[in-house]
């Protein structure tokens, strides 16, 4: 293996090598007999840019298998589009006939991939290499990145179409692709939240296959937060009394009965929280004092 691609490539894991080999073969096949050579070059140029980056980072920062497979599928979509040009892809015609559509909708598949795959990639990289955690900000940044990629890509396509009039690669739905991509980015994000989650993984560059995740890891990736005790209770304070909690309910029913506060008695509530017991002590005529770690203002 070492003779062809040098050390970097030869050291890639087998799965990545397999996808790389298969992808190269498909690329060669798509180049043969392409409808228009220039269109082909323009359509597959993202692959030619991305693959060297993936190969170079394949060992130092390996992505999850899911990400690699999605990139591979996206590359196939681009190659097929480049081979036939988007308007003439047979699959699109077949769908057009089957669903009685007005036109060949293969470009929509392309736009779906253009939103979905970058969203998965961006999310993975941000989770592993930035302080962002699953939540609103991660969603915002992932969406923004995908929109920026789609917008830049459409501008590039438009520029190419102006420069080479007659090239069949330009989108016939100006404006729509970005909207499509946004919807797909959102779908990718939602789907991904359930399926996988690579935690913030501080320094580990090892890929975490989504099947290999332990249940605990998956739980953590949902919207569970693990704040410090004080921060947690402070955050909880507004809703503490309203949130039905069996332990708190049972404690309120029994504990004060054991204490039996009497009139004029001085009682200390150590860890008084939102003061439910303090209120009951006041009602019994005793003189309570409360201590708590939580913030007073």
């Amino acid at each position, binding site marked *: 293996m070492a003779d062809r691609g040098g050390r970097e490539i030869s050291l890639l894991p087998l799965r990545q090598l397999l996808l790389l080999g298969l992808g190269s073969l498909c690329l060669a096949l798509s180049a043969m007999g392409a409808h228009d050579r220039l269109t082909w070059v323009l359509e597959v140029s993202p692959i030619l840019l991305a693959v060297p980056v993936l190969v170079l980072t394949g060992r130092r920062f390996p992505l999850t298998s899911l990400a690699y497979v999605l990139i591979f599928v996206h590359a196939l979509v681009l190659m097929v589009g480049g081979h036939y040009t988007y308007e003439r892809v047979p699959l699109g015609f077949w769908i057009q006939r089957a669903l009685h559509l007005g036109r060949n909708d293969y470009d929509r598949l392309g736009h779906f991939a253009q939103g979905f795959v970058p969203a998965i990639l961006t999310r993975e990289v941000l989770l592993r290499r930035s302080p962002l955690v699953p939540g609103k900000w991660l969603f915002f940044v992932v969406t923004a990145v995908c929109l920026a990629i789609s917008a830049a890509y459409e501008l590039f396509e438009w520029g190419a179409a102006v420069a080479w009039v007659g090239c069949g690669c330009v989108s016939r739905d100006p404006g729509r692709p970005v909207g499509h991509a946004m919807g797909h980015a959102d779908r990718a994000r939602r789907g991904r939240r359930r399926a996988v989650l690579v935690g913030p993984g501080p320094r580990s560059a090892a890929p975490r296959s989504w099947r290999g995740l332990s249940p605990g890891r998956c739980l953590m990736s949902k*919207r569970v937060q693990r704040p410090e005790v004080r921060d947690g*209770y402070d955050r*909880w304070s507004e809703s503490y009394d309203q949130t039905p909690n069996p332990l708190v*309910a049972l*404690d309120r029913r029994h*504990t004060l009965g*054991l204490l039996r506060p009497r009139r004029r008695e001085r*009682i200390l509530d150590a*860890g008084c929280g939102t003061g439910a017991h303090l209120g009951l002590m006041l009602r019994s005529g005793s003189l309570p004092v*409360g201590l708590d770690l939580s913030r007073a203002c």
Partner: protein
Amino acid sequence: MLKVTRAKHPSVPLAQADLNDRLPVRRRSFDAVLCALVGEHLSNLRLLFREIRDGLVRGGRFVFSVFHPEMAARHRGELRAGWRRVRLGALRHTVVDYLNLIDGAGFRNIEVHEFRGDDVLVEQVPWASKYLGRPLLLAVEARTS
């Protein structure tokens, strides 16, 4: 939380204090002390129980309640704050840990109670049906000599 408490009970004296540390209370100044549902978050219970004993008058009453260790060992205490779930760090103290530490602090007449999930509880909190018949709350009563 103290902010909420202050708004609800403006007449009650309140102080911010770390229960893992020495308590800001005078010796023998309380007739009774309640310490409810905080035990699993505290790492220095030995000191806390001694401080409470010192704060109590002779014959003073102490009631300590905590998420039952038997349940705590099985379930992660997870709270819901709005649409988020919050998991607070909890220490795995056992029933024997609590009892030995209370006894070691010099309390007498120690009585132990276990409260289980029952129909009344399920009426109050419907999703608590999984706790039916299971010990959910551990409460310890004790007196200073």
